């Protein structure tokens, strides 16, 4: 995208319009109709973060005891509860990682790594926002992310979900330049799509706000069983369509791993695992497959 152009036209110039109707049917490996990936957000929120002039971090004066300690539940209790259920039913994670978690709680990161999960960056902390960064600052957090995840896990990140979903107009150009292949920040499609960037090659990976556990429980105020039913309906519909779609289940263990929610959620995994239309996989594998099999044809 060209800086300045979107302010003039109102179109951020991210991608071309491609209507759903008329798309060529597509199958994932093994003839599967829907690629299902789970994205646990493994995050670290700071108790007393510095202020960003464009967005407040905590709703309350620091310390925001409920805000902070609710999220800390993930790193003491619920990560393992959620991860065990995923492993039990054969679902790997594709981790949206606050990379500073590698320093703060390396054993949480190690647990995810040992389960064969993929890591992509969700910024340094979920309390440090990209709004207002200049190019050098934004390069610094991308380079920090690549270096930190490589040092902690040996993996080279392929994807990006902006910290707390905060972007600048140059974020996508920069991550493509650094060789990342997918962004989880664009919600315009149920299939991967090419993203316009100044250099490199980037696709949009369908993530989800709508079936994100945060939206389910705190925007739509669903009960645990209503949320489980929502996920099953989402899966059933996508699996029934011919296009070859992606279903992401974005999770926060401090939400889905609460004792009243994890049981109904396990039933969702049991349901999808028992259905033969799902390619249960990781986001990087979806990106690799799409790029090598669809690529420029899309």
């Amino acid at each position, binding site marked *: 995208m060209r800086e300045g152009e979107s302010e003039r036209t109102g179109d951020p110039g991210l991608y071309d319009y491609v209507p759903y109707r008329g798309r060529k049917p597509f199958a994932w490996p093994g003839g599967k109709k829907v690629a299902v990936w789970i994205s646990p957000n493994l995050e670290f929120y700071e108790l007393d973060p*510095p202020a960003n002039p464009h967005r407040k971090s905590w709703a309350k004066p620091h*310390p925001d005891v409920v805000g902070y300690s609710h999220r800390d539940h993930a790193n003491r209790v619920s990560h393992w509860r959620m991860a065990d259920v995923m492993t039990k039913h054969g679902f790997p994670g594709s981790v949206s990682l606050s990379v500073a978690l590698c320093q703060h709680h390396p054993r949480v990161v190690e647990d995810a790594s040992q389960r064969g999960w993929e890591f992509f960056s969700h910024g340094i902390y979920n309390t440090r926002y990209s709004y207002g*960064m200049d190019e050098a600052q934004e390069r610094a957090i991308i380079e920090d992310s690549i270096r930190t995840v490589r040092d902690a896990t040996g993996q080279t990140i392929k994807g990006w979900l902006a910290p707390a979903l905060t972007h600048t107009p140059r974020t996508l150009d920069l991550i493509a330049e650094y060789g990342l292949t997918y962004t989880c920040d664009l919600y315009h499609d149920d299939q991967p799509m090419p993203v316009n960037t100044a250099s490199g090659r980037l696709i949009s990976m369908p993530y989800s706000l709508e079936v994100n556990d945060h939206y389910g429980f705190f925007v739509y105020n669903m009960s645990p069983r209503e949320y489980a039913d929502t996920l099953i309906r989402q899966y059933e519909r996508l699996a029934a369509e011919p296009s070859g779609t992606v279903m992401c289940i974005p999770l926060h263990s401090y939400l889905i791993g609460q*004792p009243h929610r994890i*049981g109904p959620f396990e039933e969702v995994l049991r349901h999808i695992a028992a259905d033969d239309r799902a390619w249960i996989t990781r986001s990087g594998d979806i990106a690799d497959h799409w790029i090598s099999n669809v690529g420029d044809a899309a």
Partner: protein
Amino acid sequence: MSLDPAYLEYPRRREGYDHDLYTWSPMRERPPVAWPEGKTLAVWPVVSLEWFPITPNDKPFRAPGHMQTAYPDYRHYTSREYGSRVGVYRLLDAFAKAGVKASFATNAAIAERYPSLVADVVAAGHEIIAHSTDMNGTIASGLPEDEERALIAKSLDALEKATGTRPRGWHSIARSQSFATPRLLAEAGVAYCCDWVNDELPYVMTTEAGELVNIPLNHELSDRQIITVQQHSADSYVEQMLDAADWLTAEAAREGGGRMLPLQLTPYIMALPYRIGSLETLLETLAARADVWFATGGEILDSWKA
């Protein structure tokens, strides 16, 4: 456009937390907790006894449930009072019927205004813990430390005067603390607080005035969150609590060690005529389970420490 370079500096990026209030400890790696008589699930009812002055105070913030209309907000003042006159007696009866003991997080003003209510709670064998002065007694950064210290002392003194026993537990309004609160509570001799929701078992907080135990009172499982905020029915609430109980009981059996299920109840929410029956069903269902131990915060603390 650029940000202050300090925004990309991380002085507390280190192993462990970005503060020194408590240390990191994954629950499943701790020595297993054993509750009395081999029970695996401690169920801890916590009832809030609150008095909302009709003149709300916004410093440092207005308490959840407080007045909403222009003065005089008779509708909310009296609706909250309903809890302290009628609702709480339905809860006391339900607890008695199920043979259940609870912790009552009580404003000092309740003890001063309604001593017979506090006497009835104590006579039934429940625990009284401190819950600030009244619902204008909110705590957050910005409240001067000497005022916070005085608020804590006043709350504890009033309950001790009314009951003859100094409360061991503390629950802040909306669980909101300042950076000084854990130290001030330890300094005041409080044994446990129930404000931090980061765990499902008690753990130790360290302060310059000594140790304080936090017994996590899960806000996500509270009647306020499920019924008032998320607007689920009382029957859905019961289903969610039983799903939680089932999960925790199975997890305790699988991983070893006890688990804890807090039930945070608000008389003006849960004890309405059309909801109380659901709660009675929940209490009776849980009380009938062989693996359930109903306990107060003080009993949980003693068992956990033993």
